[in-house]
Each structure stands twice: as structure tokens, then as C-alpha cells.
């Protein structure tokens, strides 16, 4: 190179450092002022609003489904009066089958229970298989007492009560050939759990539930099916719980039919489920519009020695910063509003995160793809200023 050649270069490509181009994109984002702020607010709202509306809807749906389940939704009751009952062992083992969440055998007895200091108290007693804890969502073994009885008797978990008398059948029930009485504890018994038992229905709910061994026959077998397995369980249980050559009779614990809400279908078919795909695509289009509006900046960078790939890095970095900051803002807004609205965050966190993840991913794909789009010649871009 001759002395007067100065900084002349032998290649026509860009000498911009990648780090400098990335920094330039970030500075363009940081100093974008009203246009960047407007875009950020717009994208944040587009990301957050459908996520919030969907989250509130899902939260309500989950709460309704939980209330339905607590009342006995998705619970089947198997009986077999002709055979004298359903086999306890088969009933308790049913919970190990795919699609069955819990199962428990129950028999109402004529035994009565009373307090230690009031042995003559007259509490109904139900012999319950070990699966009853899972069926009720209770944790802990031993005797189970519903809250209203516990409150009346001022008994809590850990207190002792007195169980008197033995019987083999409920006095007011159908004839049952059961030996449950021999297997339930009598005398001084400790209350293990106080929990809501209403899903068991009138016959079994208002009673002291005492653990019974899984032998012989029970009056009824309660089975909770997992979502989507109710019909299969309804079909399989008569044979599974057959006794003495007689199939069991299976009925829904709650009334079911066309007018009962189908929560799983409602969840699958909710209107805003696919909104994040559209939101992400709209964000990508908004970014394209911004790039087009500011195409003279692209032309300017060309005059400053930035080649196509360098300009793409500058543009893409700014776009990613815009989408990333909007996602963070949308996440904060969405979870903040859902918290204030009293939504069940454990139930909606996954769905809200999915909303934001899909919208962000689609928008990022759009931003990255737009880096390769031509926006006319640099000269035209500069003249369009």
C-alpha cells in the first residue's frame, strides 16, 4: 500500500464487528423513544390481555370442576345386592388400574361410636377400606371424621373417641353378609383425619369412618375415574367387581347426562386457546411495519459501511430486545392481574406461560425471518426519508 492509501481496504465486505452491531441494535432499542414505547405497550397488551382473559376463564373452570369433583363428580358407585355386596379386595385394588384415580369399599354398620367421656354418644360408623383417604383427598390413616361432627363433638385429629358395639350389617340397610365388624377397631380409637366427606353421599358422609381390612364383601365400592376415563370405568367395573356370578351394578355418584358440564371439553374448546399464535404473528407484522417505516435508517447504515448481514444483526437485535422486553412486561402484568383477580395461580400458571411462550416464539421467528427481507435499494430507502 502506498503512503497515500490511508485506510483503504482490499475487501468490499463490512468490517463492522458483530459485538458493535449487536450493541448498535440495543442502543437503537434503548433510545427508540416514543416509537419503541408505543410498540412495547402495544405488544405487551397483545400478549397479556388474551393470557389474562383465558387465565381467568381457566381458573373459574378449574374451580367449578373441583367443586363438582368434591361433590362426587367423576365418581362411580358399585353395588351388588343380589350377591350380598362387592368384594372388598377387588374394590381396593381397582385404584391400581390405569384410568382409576382412587377406590374405596364402604359398609355402614350398626356399631355406634361415642366420646371417651361420653361412651353412650350415638355416632354412625362406616367400615372404610384403606382407599378412602385417596378418594377423599385426605392425608393420614386411622379414623376419619367429617368436620361438622368433629365441630359438634369438639374433636380434632389426634383426639380419642370410644367405639362401642359390634355388628355385621347396617340395621336400616339391605341384608349384607359381611364380617366387617370383626375387622374394625373397637374401644378407644384415635381420630386420624377430619375432612369433608360429602362426596360419599348421605348414607356414608355423616359417620365415623373406621379402617377395615380388605377381606369379604362391602356394601358399596366408590371409584373415582381420571378425566377422560369415566366411560371406560363405567363399562369395566360391573365385571371387575362381580361376585357370586353376579355383575355389580354401577351408577354415577352425581346425575350425569347431556346437561352436565364437560369440563375437559370446555377446557379444550375455550375461545382464546389459540390466540397466542395470532398475537405472535401480529407482532411479527408490526415489527415488519416498523422496519419499513424506518427503512431510511437501513440505508443510512449502508452508507456507514454496514453490509447486509451487519444490518440484519442490528435490526434483529433491536427486534429481539423489543419482543423480549414486551414479554417480560406482559408476564408481569398478566400474573399481577391474575393475582389481583384472585385466580388460582397454580391452575393457570402453565396456561399463561404457554400463552406467552407461543406468542414470543412466533414473534421471534417473524423478527429473525424479516432480517432477510429486502426493503428496496439503500438509495431508495434514503430518498424515502
Amino acid at each position, binding site marked *: *500500500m*502506498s503512503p*497515500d*492509501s*490511508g*485506510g*483503504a*481496504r*482490499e*475487501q*468490499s*465486505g*463490512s*468490517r*463492522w*464487528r458483530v*459485538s*458493535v*452491531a449487536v*450493541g*448498535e441494535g440495543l*442502543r*437503537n432499542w434503548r*433510545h*427508540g*423513544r416514543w416509537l419503541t414505547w408505543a410498540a412495547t405497550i402495544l405488544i405487551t397488551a397483545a400478549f397479556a390481555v388474551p393470557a389474562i382473559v383465558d387465565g381467568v376463564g381457566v381458573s373459574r373452570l378449574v374451580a367449578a370442576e373441583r367443586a363438582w369433583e368434591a361433590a362426587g363428580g367423576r365418581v362411580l358407585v358399585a353395588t351388588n345386592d343380589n350377591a350380598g355386596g362387592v368384594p372388598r379386595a377387588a374394590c381396593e385394588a381397582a385404584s391400581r388400574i390405569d384410568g382409576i384415580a382412587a377406590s374405596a369399599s364402604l359398609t355402614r354398620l350398626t356399631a355406634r361410636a361415642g366420646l371417651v367421656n361420653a361412651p353412650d354418644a350415638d355416632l354412625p360408623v362406616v367400615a372404610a377400606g384403606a382407599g378412602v383417604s385417596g378418594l377423599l383427598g385426605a392425608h393420614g390413616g386411622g379414623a376419619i371424621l367429617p368436620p361438622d361432627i368433629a365441630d359438634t363433638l369438639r374433636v380434632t385429629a389426634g383426639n380419642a373417641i370410644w367405639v362401642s358395639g359390634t355388628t355385621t350389617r347396617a340395621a336400616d340397610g339391605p341384608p349384607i353378609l359381611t364380617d366387617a365388624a370383626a375387622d374394625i377397631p373397637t374401644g378407644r380409637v384415635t381420630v386420624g383425619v377430619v375432612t369433608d366427606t360429602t362426596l360419599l353421599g348421605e348414607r356414608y358422609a355423616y359417620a365415623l369412618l373406621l379402617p377395615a381390612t380388605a377381606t369379604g364383601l362391602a356394601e358399596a365400592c366408590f371409584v373415582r375415574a381420571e378425566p377422560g376415563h369415566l366411560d371406560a370405568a363405567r363399562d369395566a367395573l360391573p365385571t371387575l367387581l362381580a361376585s357370586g356370578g353376579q355383575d355389580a351394578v354401577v351408577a354415577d355418584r352425581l346425575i350425569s347426562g347431556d346437561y352436565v358440564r364437560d369440563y375437559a371439553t370446555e377446557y379444550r374448546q375455550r375461545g382464546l386457546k389459540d390466540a397466542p399464535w395470532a398475537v405472535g404473528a401480529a407482532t411479527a407484522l408490526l415489527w415488519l411495519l416498523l422496519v419499513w417505516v424506518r427503512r*431510511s*435508517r437501513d*440505508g*443510512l*447504515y*449502508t*452508507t*456507514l*459501511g*454496514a453490509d447486509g448481514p451487519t444490518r440484519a444483526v442490528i435490526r434483529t437485535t433491536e427486534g429481539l430486545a423489543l419482543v423480549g422486553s414486551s414479554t417480560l412486561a406482559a408476564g408481569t402484568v398478566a400474573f399481577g392481574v391474575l393475582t389481583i383477580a384472585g385466580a388460582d395461580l397454580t391452575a393457570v400458571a402453565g396456561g399463561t406461560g404457554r400463552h406467552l411462550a407461543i406468542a414470543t416464539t412466533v414473534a421471534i421467528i417473524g423478527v429473525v425471518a424479516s432480517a432477510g427481507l429486502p426493503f428496496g*435499494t*439503500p*438509495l431508495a430507502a*434514503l430518498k424515502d*426519508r
Partner: protein
Amino acid sequence: MRLVVEDLVFAHPGAPPLLDRLSLTAVMGESVAIIGPSGSGKTTLLALVGGLLRSGGGRITLVDGERELPVRGNVSWVLQTVNVLSDRSVVDNIAVGAYADGLDREAALERARAALDAVGLAGQGHRDIRTLSGGEAQRAVIARATVSDRPVLLADEPTGQLDRDTSAAVIDTLLGAASAKITLVVTHDPAVAARCSRTLTLGGGTLTAVRP
């Protein structure tokens, strides 16, 4: 080092040639004014030299002794309108001009401050570029064009939007800062052309010497 343009041809689609076998040579330290009526192709000529447009034929090269170097990548610009990054500071705008030399940000900012001093804007680097007057902004653009080592400077109507006094000051700044470059200046202003080393008229697709 010389800028050599040989037999350059350019035509817009479906139109007669705007530039027709145009040739031009300019040497290091020389400033060449290009004048001519509107639509004669002056800006197009600069855009072709600067690599913003593709020609329909001919060659544009930088000749350095026995070697030929590509012009593209060795060019800096002062444009007709004040093209700046409007949401950035003055020094930031000038530093961007140095990135083409492969500098990192700190080194570019250091050069930018020195370039600001050279164009009479010392101490103004922190200002929002939009707060500068038209003359100050054009001097900042000149600083951006001369902050880099690129040997060819293309100026398209650098004083087109300035009053007469400001125009004289800006052209002084431009030619002073570009004294060690090959400078092509497109202008309508005879006073600006008179300050250049020589003047060529573009018409009918070719250049004619007005003031050799």
C-alpha cells in the same frame, strides 16, 4: 491513489441511458465538484460509485500503485438531507461512522470526539442531535464521514439546505476535513463548486470539464 471510473453505463428500466460510457479520474487530496441540471444523474453517479446502485456496465476502481481495490467499502458519505440517527447523541452519531474501520465502541467514541473538535463542535458531543442547528448538524455529518479512514468521500448537495453564510462555513469544514481524501461533491451552488479543485458538468450522460 486514484479513483477511476471507466465507461460507466446506467439506465432506469425502460428509459434511455442516464449515464452513457461516463469516465472520471480523481486523485488523493483532490476535490471534484459535479454540477448539472436536475435529473442529469449526479446523485445516481455518486450512488454507483458508492455501491448503492448497480451499474449497467463499466468499471469503478481505486488504483493504489499497481493494485486495484474495490471502491465499495472505501467510501464515506455526506448526504443531501441531514441523515442522522435522530434519537441518539451527537457523539454517538459520529462514532457510528468509525465502526466501518473495525473499531470497537470505545475506540470509535475516542475518534468521534477528536472529529467533533476538527469540525468546530468540541464539547457538543453529549447533546441530542436533534437540538443542533442545520449548519451544526451538517458539520456533525461531515465529522461522521471523516472519522473513518475510508479514502473516498462522496458529498451529495452537502449545503443544499443551508443559508449562504452557513453554507460557506460548512464547505470549509468539509474540504478541510477531507483534504487527505478523494472527494466528489455534487452541488447546484456555484460558490461551493468554486471551492473545489475542479468542476465537471454532467449532461447527456457524460462529464465535461468546466474548470479543469
